[in-house]
């Protein structure tokens, strides 16, 4: 009897039902394993069978073990026991699709070459029967030389037999035998092995010979120098002369072996029946109908994201406000209270507010992927996306970024090609996200409303959204031609059969995405929030040595005490001069707290930086106030509205109240007050007074192009496992934003001059 823990690796083609089998075997005992230096995540699960504890590793879906990238190499190394994190698997569990045995057994034949015991699970046996395909598993097992178990992973049928087969295979510990290659190939492999020595396993030596330009070749040539490259090329040359050139020799040897096994064990109807999938595809992949349905699905998806997330987001915001108020009333004022309220509670709140959108989007993506529609969507959108050097798979991440770049970037995980994925990640923040909307609405409302036709504000808003849609593909194309250059990835994609999505799997994807975001991105956003808080808080004493927070509190208290009196005086029709003077005084006192707050922010480190950097902002048509607000909004762009409120002495304006008809009156009044205050302030200035529209456009263009979102940068860091990509994104977007704003103001002011 076995006493130690068994390690089983689960390998299969994409869409073979790998995840379903993984969930059926390991239930809820799962965790995600990360591997340094690569972007792949592998799930690990545990279960006990026949008194033996089994560790199950779910490898990413693949069509073959011919590794083309470090990511794909992780799976191969893991199977060979060459990763320090995991022991060598005792058994390799190969899952294949019963309706598509020929194709899936190709990978199985490669797994047999690893030298570990293999068990084959033939999944979706019911679907095969429905198509009239009969599989004789005993005959297949005899042909393959390993155990073959028919299963239905989605219904849990055959799982017990499968676990027993796994135990038996581990106990027997018999190395299976794969397809035979031509003699000439074996000879070359032996010669190459002698060259490399015992350090490289035989399996990798054969891959080195077979995979032209593959990862094994890159890796070993780097280590052993060009002499090895020479030897491989000579070896391949000899193979071509002997009539078994690579890579054709592998396909021929393996498929001949697969065909022999399938011929002995599978009977198929001569005519393949037209399946449900075929019928559905006639509509869903149709150039016109399919595209229309796709657009409808996308519209529904974004409507739901906005509609369903709104109440949840409001709820989170409410809790945040309540927590801030609760702490404020129970703590003495001082840096600690300010840190907890403004830094911690508001910082965490501004992170958690994204959660509903992320989870709903991921619910949709998981659902669409699970039922097989996602591949159809990528197919339909490929023609459009190939124009900017990307593939159809980049479409949904980019479209999601219109709601918010954070879930959009997380959604790029569906893109297997590394370069495509990086290009998509880097341009996703250019798409105009929902956080930019308050800025647009505020400035359009203030400058491009009165004196213009009613359709002009809408057109400007549309143009601002178009900036992202136009610039993102251009940047993607430039990146693919420069930094991310490489052989154009061949775009071959399988369109899997439609199947009913599993609700549990969809829910799990939603919660995984939410958790990953909260945990990892949250910490960085949180740190950034605290930093900006500190830059706006310190120094917190005025030139006379009095503390600003204390003075504001006093002013607030005074305003509150005289509130009733103020109302009374306001309501009075026939006020005496004395009373009028008092009313003025009281009104002034009511605004005192906001004024003090503005004064404090101006004197803060960030405020001083804004003043200091004014020459930098001047070519954009900005004064130090706009510059400082832009600086303060680098961690999160919606902050600009609140910061402008502070700077223009209106008080803290809620960015949510802008353009929201349901906001309460006070919030709306403040938002409207801010638009007016900005306008009045600019009117006093010679430059902004004359070129107000050009300045407003320059600010909006800057916001459209700039990466003012710590969450986005944190997620890029998380998804690329490198600081280089978020740094690059930040630098190129800031440069682009500056250039864009510069051009907008300069051209805009020229036009204004010409018109006058």
């Amino acid at each position, binding site marked *: 009897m076995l006493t130690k823990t068994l390690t089983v690796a689960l390998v299969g083609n994409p869409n073979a039902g790998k995840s379903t089998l993984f969930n059926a075997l390991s239930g809820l005992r799962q965790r995600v394993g990360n591997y340094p230096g690569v972007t792949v995540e592998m799930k690990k699960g545990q279960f006990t069978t026949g008194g033996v504890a089994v560790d199950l590793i779910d490898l990413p879906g693949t*069509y*073959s073990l*011919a590794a*083309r990238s470090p990511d794909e190499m992780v799976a191969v190394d893991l199977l060979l026991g060459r990763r320090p994190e995991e022991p060598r698997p005792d058994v390799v569990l190969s899952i294949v699709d019963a*309706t*598509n045995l*020929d*194709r899936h057994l*190709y*990978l199985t034949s490669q797994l047999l070459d690893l030298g570990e015991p293999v068990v084959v699970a033939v999944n979706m046996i019911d679907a095969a029967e429905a198509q009239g395909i009969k599989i004789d598993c005993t005959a297949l097992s005899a042909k393959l030389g390993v155990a073959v178990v028919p299963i239905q992973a989605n219904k849990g049928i055959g799982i017990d037999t499968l676990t027993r087969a796994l135990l038996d295979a581990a106990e027997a510990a018999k190395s299976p035998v794969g397809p035979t290659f031509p003699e000439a190939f074996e000879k070359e492999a032996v010669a190459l092995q002698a060259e490399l020595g015992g350090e490289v396993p035989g399996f990798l030596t054969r891959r080195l010979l*077979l*995979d*032209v*330009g*593959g990862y094994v070749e890159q890796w070993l040539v780097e280590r052993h120098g060009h002499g090895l490259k020479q030897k491989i090329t000579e070896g391949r040359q000899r193979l071509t002369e002997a009539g078994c050139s*690579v*890579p*054709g020799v*592998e*396909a*021929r040897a393996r*498929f001949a072996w697969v065909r022999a096994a399938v011929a002995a064990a599978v009977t198929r109807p001569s005519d*393949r029946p037209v399946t449900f*999938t075929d019928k559905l*595809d006639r509509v869903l*992949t149709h*150039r016109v109908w399919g595209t229309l349905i796709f657009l409808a699905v996308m519209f529904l998806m974004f409507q739901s994201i906005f509609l369903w997330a709104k109440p949840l987001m409001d709820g989170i915001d409410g809790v945040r406000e309540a927590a801030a108020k609760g702490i404020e009333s129970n703590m003495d004022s001082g840096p600690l209270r300010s840190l907890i309220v403004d830094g911690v509670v508001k910082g965490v709140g501004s992170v958690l507010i994204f959660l509903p959108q992320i989870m709903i989007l991921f619910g949709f993506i998981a659902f669409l992927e699970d039922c097989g529609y996602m*591949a159809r969507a*990528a*197919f339909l959108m*490929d*023609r459009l996306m*190939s124009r900017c050097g990307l593939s*159809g798979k980049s479409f949904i991440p980019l479209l999601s970024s219109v709601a918010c770049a954070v879930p959009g970037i997380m959604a790029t995980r569906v893109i297997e090609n590394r370069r495509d994925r990086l290009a998509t990640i880097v341009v996703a923040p250019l798409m105009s996200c929902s956080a930019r909307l308050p800025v647009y609405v505020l400035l359009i409302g203030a400058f491009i409303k009165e004196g213009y036709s009613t359709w002009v504000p809408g057109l400007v808003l549309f143009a601002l959204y178009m900036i992202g849609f136009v610039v993102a593909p251009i940047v993607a194309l430039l990146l693919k031609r420069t930094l991310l250059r490489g*052989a154009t990835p*061949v*775009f*071959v*994609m*399988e*369109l899997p059969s439609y199947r009913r999505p599993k609700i549990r799997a969809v829910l799990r994807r939603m919660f995984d995405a939410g958790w990953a975001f909260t945990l990892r991105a949250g910490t960085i956003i949180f740190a950034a929030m605290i930093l900006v808080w500190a830059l706006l808080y310190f120094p917190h004493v005025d030139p006379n040595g009095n503390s600003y927070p204390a003075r504001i509190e006093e002013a607030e208290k005074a305003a509150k005490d005289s509130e009733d009196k103020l109302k009374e005086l306001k309501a009075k029709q026939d006020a005496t001069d004395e009373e009028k003077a008092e009313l003025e005084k009281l009104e002034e006192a009511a605004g005192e707290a906001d004024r003090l707050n503005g004064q404090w922010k101006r004197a803060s480190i960030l405020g001083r930086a804004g003043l200091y950097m004014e020459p930098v902002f001047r070519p954009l048509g900005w004064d130090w106030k706009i510059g400082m607000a832009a600086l303060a909004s680098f961690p999160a762009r919606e902050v600009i509205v609140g910061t402008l409120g502070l700077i223009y002495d209106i008080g803290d304006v809620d960015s949510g109240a802008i353009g929201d008809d349901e906001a309460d009156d006070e919030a709306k009044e403040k938002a409207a007050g801010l638009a007016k205050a900005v306008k009045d302030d600019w009117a006093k200035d010679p430059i902004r007074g004359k070129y107000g529209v050009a300045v407003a456009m320059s600010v909006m263009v800057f916001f459209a192009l700039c990466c003012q979102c710590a969450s986005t940068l944190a997620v890029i860091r998380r998804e690329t496992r490198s600081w280089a990509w978020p740094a690059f994104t930040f630098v190129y977007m800031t440069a682009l934003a500056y250039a864009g704003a510069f051009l907008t103001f300069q051209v805009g002011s020229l036009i204004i001059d010409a018109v006058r």
Partner: protein
Amino acid sequence: MLMPLDMLRAGEVAEVEEVSGQAAWIGRLAELGIRQGCRVRVVQAGSPCLLDVDGCKLCLRGGECSQILVRPVG
């Protein structure tokens, strides 16, 4: 008569005679079932096109299809 795969119209069936191009690409296609001697049916022509290979739907781009030489059947 040999012709590139992208010359086929929707509904036509052909046998693959030769796949040319980079070795990695040939290997990748072979893994997916497109190799010498196999049968493909064009479900939807154009770029990207939709092929039926052994009851499995694959999507390929036009430029890549032109690297696959086929012999029409029937």
